[in-house]
């Protein structure tokens, strides 16, 4: 596939929760290998936007095409999209009744139909990549938040997705653990993974993002390269947001 072709193409996306208009006329195109950071105040629709990309939320208007599959009610397309898209949640959402290795192999065995041994080898490889192979036999409840989030990243990566979505992956973590998770994400970015990251870690954003998107009240207010975004924000709302977030 050619470098500039869009793997995610969102056009005129609108979404309502009841009467509440959460996403308004969103247009976004993400090309292969591109890393996009999405930020904005609480309630601006960031989570909703990226959850639409793997159909955890349904949109009502507009088109979302992921890797050539348009998201509609067609379950086949939804499955096809989810096969290409991994997701990491703010609250980790590991499966507490399975140990770390089983968390990683579950979908490989049941969705990819991979033999158990092969799945375990693959899972161990990714646990090495997130630097916790020694925790493979533990249960999620016995790990620290940072370790859990790294397992969650490994669990997604095992499925060999083309695109990774991150919804505030570090906001539930203590400061010491944020770095270990961000390090793993930086490593991942260096492998050329297409990433959409909702985060307020502006250091991370300026280090890896190709584009930063600022959302407010369901609109994409500003979209720019990190340099322009930080040094030369166009809208007043962006300036206000940056001043609040950088003063912390």
């Amino acid at each position, binding site marked *: 596939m050619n470098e500039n072709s869009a793997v995610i193409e969102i056009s005129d996306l609108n979404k309502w929760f009841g009467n509440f208009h959460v996403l308004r006329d969103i247009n976004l195109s993400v090309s292969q290998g591109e890393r996009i950071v999405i930020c904005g105040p609480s309630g601006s629709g960031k989570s909703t936007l990226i959850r639409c990309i*793997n159909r955890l939320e349904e949109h009502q208007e507009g088109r979302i095409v992921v890797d050539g599959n348009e998201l509609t009610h067609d379950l086949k397309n939804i*499955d096809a999209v989810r096969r290409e898209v991994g997701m990491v949640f703010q609250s980790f959402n*590991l*499966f507490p009744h399975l140990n770390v290795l089983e968390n990683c192999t*579950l979908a490989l065995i049941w969705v990819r139909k991979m033999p158990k041994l092969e799945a375990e080898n693959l899972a161990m490889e990714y646990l090495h990549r997130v630097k916790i192979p020694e925790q493979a036999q533990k249960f*999620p409840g*016995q790990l620290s938040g940072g370790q859990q989030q790294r397992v969650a990243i490994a*669990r997604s990566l095992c499925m060999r997705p083309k695109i990774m979505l991150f919804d505030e992956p570090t906001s539930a973590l203590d400061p010491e653990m944020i770095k270990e998770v961000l390090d793993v994400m930086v490593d991942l970015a260096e492998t050329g993974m297409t990433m959409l990251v909702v985060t307020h870690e502006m250091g991370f954003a300026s280090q890896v993002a190709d584009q930063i998107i600022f959302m407010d009240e369901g609109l994409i207010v500003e979209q720019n390269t990190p340099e322009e975004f930080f040094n030369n924000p166009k809208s007043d709302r962006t300036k206000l947001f940056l001043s609040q977030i950088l003063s912390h």
Partner: protein
Amino acid sequence: MTIDNNSNNDKANQNIKPPPANTVGIIGWIRKNLLGGWVNTLLTLISIYILWLVLPPLFDWALLNADFSGSSGKECTTNGACWAWLDQRINQFFYGFYPPDSYWRVNLSLILLLPALAYILFENLPYSTYGRWFALSYPIISAVLLLGGVGLEGVTTDKFGGFMLNLVAGLAGIILSLPIGVVLALGRRSKLPLIRVFSIAFIEIIRGVPLITLLFVAVIIVQLFLPPGVSLDQLIRVMIMITIFASAYMAEVIRGGLQAIPNGQYEAAQAVGLGYWRSMRLVILPQALKISIPGIVNTFIGLFKDTTLVIIIGLFDILGQARLLQTNPDWMGKVDHETFLLAALFFFIICFSMSRYSINLEKRLDTTNK
């Protein structure tokens, strides 16, 4: 380095003291559990007093002063219990009116039940693949054994009775009510209105009617709707009703468990591409069933005790057998307590085992501090 370590160790060793003698061992246990505070001490004393009032006389009555032989109640002359009937009647208490030369069929199906249960309840047994298949086919095997067919002489269900009848009806109900309950609980949370409305209506109607009413419906009213000449075995009707009744309660118990699972679990399962059914089977239900274990076992125990209601279709389960003996002229007035005591003992053994197993299972499934 080594020296440092050693001196550290020494220091650490110096600070390690055994816990005070009166906080560990038997004395510690007694102090903590029986004599902790004056309320507990008082309760302990009252309990000991009550036990002292109840146990010695009970022991005297049931064993020391009891009569164990004789062919009728008149031969029980002591003021203790009369167990003389056991000799003649214990088989009826257990097998009902099942033909005596076929008792081995009941025994065999009971003996086969043990490995079948073991393969379902415990992990890490040898030959587990064969074992699971055996456990799955056990209901058919035991149905053939009990009812006959395939070369065995047929036995109709009106010959079933005694504790065996309670076991058959109870086990069938337990095996069926759990999966039906799961389906109803999922149905009640379904996004499809038709399925949801059906599940809610089913659960609420069944829960709103006493079991005894359902049994009368099964016995009397169902016959009116069956085409003439068709009849459905009475025992099967009753088992269906007991199962349906327990399923409605089971569904609510499991729904409680499902509601306790955070939505993020379902979303994470969806995100890695497990569809609805696999998400439920592999991620949601294992967790929901685990937290529902106490409620599930509660329902099982209730169901098992409800099997004594088969008396209304004229079958004599273990309680029926007890009543039969109590009204028998030979034994009248002599065996009222004894027969009920035996029935209670049988039920207690089964229900208590279920409860112990559920505690063991909860501990085994606890993944938070392994």
